[in-house]
């Protein structure tokens, strides 16, 4: 649920619950996006072609 949904109420419950949800989803999303973009950049640069970490 987003704040522009008709069911949304600006109270502590909604802010805490959904704030926590978005916080976690953002960290997961940003983290994964970073990993994928860096993997693309590394691949373009030719890293990882020898199969070592």
């Amino acid at each position, binding site marked *: 649920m987003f704040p522009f949904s008709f069911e949304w109420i600006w109270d502590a419950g909604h802010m805490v619950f959904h704030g926590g949800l978005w916080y976690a989803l953002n960290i997961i999303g940003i983290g994964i996006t970073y*990993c994928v973009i860096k993997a693309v950049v590394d691949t373009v640069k030719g890293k990882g072609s020898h199969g070592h*970490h």
Partner: protein
Amino acid sequence: MDSALIPKGVKRCPMWQFLLGLGIVGAVLAWGVYAMLLCWFKGLNQTNMNDYYGFALWIWADLAVIAVGGGAFFSGLLKYIIGKDELKNIINYAVLIGFICYSSALLILAIDVGQPLRSWFIFWHANVHSMLTEVAFCLSCYFSVLTIEYIPLILENRQIDKVPFFHNLGHNMHETMAVFAATGAFLSFFHQGSLGGVAGVLFGRPFSFREGLLIWPWTFFLFTWSAAAYGPCFTLLITWITEKVTRKKLVKDNVVELLAKISGWMIFTYTIAKICDTTRWANITAPGLGQTLADFYTGTAFYGYWILFAEVVLGGLVPAIILISAPLRKNPVWRVTAIILAVLGVSLNRWVMVLQVMAAPVMTFDQWILYYPSWQEVATTILPVAYGIILIMISYRYLPIFPQEAELNPIDDEPEVEAVADAPADLEPAKA
């Protein structure tokens, strides 16, 4: 014929044996899937749940797998945040077990809600006054975290790792894993706690009702604490079973003993807290609500005092003392006995907090009501076990789950394909 996919330096059983094992467990899985489909297409009348038992075998199984799956978040916390580097040799397996436990929990919930296509309602039409909303939010997010922690293991498969992009992706995910592990620990704290909180706020059920801190009843903290304490024991138990099935030593003793020791101290402190909680509840909380301790334990032999003794002493104090005592912990027989008792103890705790809560009469005209699961419930509860075994079999065969396996089980003759395949010579075992 699949030797090119098997990690380098380790030996696996013949393909026919592997497929035979998959077939046997797959038959059990199919039985569970059949029961699951019955529940979805015919409805929850396939179960023996009723007005007394709205939470029944499924929910016990759900809470139990979530508790024992706590080994993933706690091991991750110890490895990535606290810096217990030795645990890198068991963290892969802890993640796999956690992934199985949490996906099983979500599967059980998908059956339990009856209409899985509407599962998203809990996110969009959330009841922010419900602890179960928090559980749903955290459980879903934490499952995503476990998936992220499991993906690098898949990417380290010998053939997949040859693809530069996948190799780099796996490497980058390893590098940033501390962020995901920290997020996982944060999410686990709240969803484990909220599962306990659900029981603690039931003021109409004096068996589970507890006082607490601000909005949190004690059960909130006891559930989180017990999951962190007992979860590693389940990881150790499954590792021990895997070693017995494969007839190989897969993890060095110092790693097992470290995790067992930490788990032992956690169980010990948890059990002390549990005894304090039970004492206060028996002497202050329950009498304040008009009931005595005997009301909860003497109505039926099935829920007699023995269950309290079994949970707190046999499943709490005894394994804790064994695991914190160095001579006993180093003895494999005592150690395995302790971890089995611990896993049974935490499962019994979840059973009590789900089933006995419902069974205990709260009105003068109420009687003890016993509950018997239907075969469909039993089948759908065994379903995740079969699924877990299959995932472990496939992961163990094709992924570098145990970094110490090659060292502990040196092989003289590599298969012919190894010499031909252009596998990288310096392929490392799984890194945590």
